[in-house]
């Protein structure tokens, strides 16, 4: 057993390295960009370093390079505690958040974190009643955990017992529990037993007050989460991907969901003090969402999500240490959001940029093949050796004059066509060979459709135009074997319909 998870870890690691492959340099670039973004944020927000300044002091003052270096390199003990604590929190939240997101339960985390507030308030009241300080962290977190659990149970109960949808149930639970919590905080204010100041920090988070014991707690929770996700990797992925198959195989859905939600509760409750209950959901949701743009595999996605979470925690805590007026929770979330935006644009898997380039390449290649085919078919149907005119080409397909001219220009510089007499165009030797290949693929596909799919020949042309470009070499090979006798393999088969 002990060898099991360890072995898997290394497998995931290797897979991640492979998966990142070409994206590795981009990741490094991304991290650099993040630092820059956050540094400029701190500047723009009229940050002032040090607490001796008066509140009216709004002068723009950047922290010195030495101060920045001190914080980023964790030279100061307090900063080190806070930064490492938030980093680990981001790591744990990113890892378990990936599964939460894939289970399509992202908002469950939000309802959960809001539901903890009455628990915190009640724990405070109970502890002060029994003569305690009321601010003992374990006590408050216990209250938070119990009410977080109650909140989740309420969502499941409302969904199961009524025919309301999950989003409705989440909305009810989230707002009612939060309202209850705020009322209880009001009650506490009126109590004469000691100060309740500090409880509000659970709403917005107060990273700077993190103690070593808090950081240790976070480290423990993050480690437990990571180990849990490694150990249950196979079970979680199956449950998230195909619940009914998992159940048909005898995997206990309730138990697995329970384990997953328990980890979410743990990370959420632990993170309340650092980022606050309103913003906690961002740490659970944004890093996994950003990670999805970098990988199509689950293992790497989990690791990248953890990484983005950790970096967000690191940068957020550092910036807020440099600019004391900026709340760490908000900066952490904003950092994660910048990572998300950058991933969305530059992500190697589904990034906007990559997709645009792919689309552009595909259009280019389709246009080239269309041109070659039009030229080839014009020559085939007996065009003079003088070449094919632009007008004839324009009539051959529905394309604009501009698109056609662009295509002709590119084909010429690729050496596939050459100018003939009187503004006409001729295929070069190389161009003819390429065109023959294109036309042959096209017609094989047409033949396939005609013989195999009961589609009338007159309907085939349009379909084939779109499909042949998706058709790989292997398929063409298969079609050849299927349809063309061996001796005629090199020959372009005749078109099955009138040209």
């Amino acid at each position, binding site marked *: 057993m002990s060898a099991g998870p360890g072995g898997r870890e290394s497998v995931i690691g290797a897979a991640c390295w492979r998966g990142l492959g070409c994206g590795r340099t981009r990741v490094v670039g991304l991290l650099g960009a993040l630092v820059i973004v956050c540094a400029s944020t701190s500047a723009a927000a009229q940050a002032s370093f040090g607490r001796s300044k008066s509140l009216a002091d709004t002068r723009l003052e950047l922290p010195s390079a030495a101060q920045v270096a001190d914080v980023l390199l964790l030279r100061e003990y307090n900063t080190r505690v806070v930064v490492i604590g938030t980093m680990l929190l981001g790591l744990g939240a990113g890892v378990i958040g990936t599964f939460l997101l894939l289970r399509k339960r992202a908002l469950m985390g939000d309802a959960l974190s809001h539901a903890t507030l009455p628990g915190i308030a009640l724990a405070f009241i109970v502890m002060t009643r029994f003569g305690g300080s009321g601010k003992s962290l374990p006590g408050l977190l216990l209250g938070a955990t119990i009410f977080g659990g109650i909140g989740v149970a309420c969502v499941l109960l409302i969904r199961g017992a009524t025919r309301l949808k999950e989003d409705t149930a989440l909305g009810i639970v989230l707002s009612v529990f939060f309202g209850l919590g705020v009322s209880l905080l009001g009650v506490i204010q009126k109590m004469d037993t000691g100060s309740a100041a500090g409880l509000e920090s659970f709403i917005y988070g107060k990273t700077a007050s993190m103690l070593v014991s808090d950081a240790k707690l976070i480290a423990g929770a993050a480690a437990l989460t990571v180990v849990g996700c490694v150990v249950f*990797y*196979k079970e979680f992925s*199956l449950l998230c991907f195909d619940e009914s198959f998992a159940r048909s195989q005898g995997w206990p859905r309730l138990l697995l969901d329970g384990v997953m939600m328990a980890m979410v509760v743990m990370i959420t409750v632990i993170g309340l003090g650092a980022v606050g209950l309103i913003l906690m959901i961002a740490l659970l949701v944004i890093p996994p969402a950003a990670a999805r743009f970098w990988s199509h595999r689950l293992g790497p996605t989990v690791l990248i999500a953890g990484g983005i979470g950790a970096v967000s925690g690191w940068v957020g805590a550092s910036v807020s240490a440099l600019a004391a007026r900026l709340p760490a929770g908000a900066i952490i979330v904003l950092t994660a959001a910048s990572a998300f935006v950058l991933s969305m644009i530059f992500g190697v898997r589904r990034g906007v940029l990559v997709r645009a380039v792919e689309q552009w390449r595909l259009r280019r290649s389709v246009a080239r093949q269309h041109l070659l085919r039009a030229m080839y078919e014009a020559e085939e149907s007996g065009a003079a050796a003088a070449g094919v005119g632009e007008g004839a080409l324009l009539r051959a397909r529905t394309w604009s004059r501009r698109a056609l001219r662009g295509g002709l220009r590119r084909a010429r510089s690729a050496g596939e066509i050459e100018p003939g007499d009187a503004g006409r165009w001729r295929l070069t030797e190389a161009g003819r060979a390429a065109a023959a290949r294109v036309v042959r693929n096209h017609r094989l596909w047409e033949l396939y459709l005609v013989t195999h799919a009961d589609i009338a020949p007159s309907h085939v042309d349009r379909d084939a135009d779109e499909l042949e470009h998706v058709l790989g070499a292997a398929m063409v090979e298969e079609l050849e074997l299927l349809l063309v006798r061996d001796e005629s393999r090199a020959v372009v088969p005749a078109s099955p319909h009138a040209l």
Partner: protein
Amino acid sequence: MHRSLKEEASRDARSHERAEPSSEFGVASSRVDVRGTQTTVTAASAASPRIASGEEHPSNSPLSIHDMTVAYHRKPVLWDVDFDAPEGRLIGIVGPNGAGKSTLLKAVLELVPKASGRVTIYGAPYRRQRRLVGYVPQRESVDWDFPVSALDVVAMGTYARIGWLRPVTRKYRDAALAALSRVGMADYADRQISQLSGGQQQRVFLARALVQDAKVYLMDEPFAGVDAATEKAIVRILHDLRDAGRTVLAVHHDLQTVPEYFDHVMLLNMRIVASGPTRDVFTRENLQKTYGGRLTLLEQAAHAMARGIANSE
């Protein structure tokens, strides 16, 4: 076989007595004719006494469904389904939309609760025989944007054998790869599943069931939305499974291909209208009872029957 048909007919008669007023299901006139296709049997069964439930099912049947009723929100979806699957056959489950075909499979797999009835796989309850059953859910039931490769999905079929908390070792990956090549998808093993076509996704699902090496396969619309090549490939695999003695139940929509693909057919419309060997049961009148007045479908069926008869002669 003859025996089980007889019993089926006698049960049919009983379940009709028990059923709610037939107008509810809109099949009033069809009752008596259900057994019209088994006329030789009907006469005998009319005289046979009632047999206590449970004794009438052969204990070694790959799948026995005893008087199963399934209801969603108090509305019955399946009523008194009673069925014994013959071993080593390809069984098509056919019926109109909302007839409860998927629900039947899900109830067998205990994915939806049964209001009453009992299901056994080779004589024992499903929860003790999970290993013997392979399930292919509807393709639309999962999110194909999930970050896994085709091979990862197929490997999920081995998870039950691997057991709790253990990693997927090379042995199981190889088994998954073998299953993928069996459905002609070995070249796509590392593809993310959203990059596969509908037919390829369906093949991945089939491979996941194959890697389980089950004895009974339950497939929910394996031919839905697949291309012609995939359909052929799937049919070939189903025939291979049958030739290896496995039993396959598949929900099927295309009436035209029923006689070609399936040896047995279960006509289902909230209850079993008829079930048995395709050539006996897949008749115009049974289809009329199953589908009611849906004429276009009946037209299809007419073609199918013409083809079926031509094939069998």
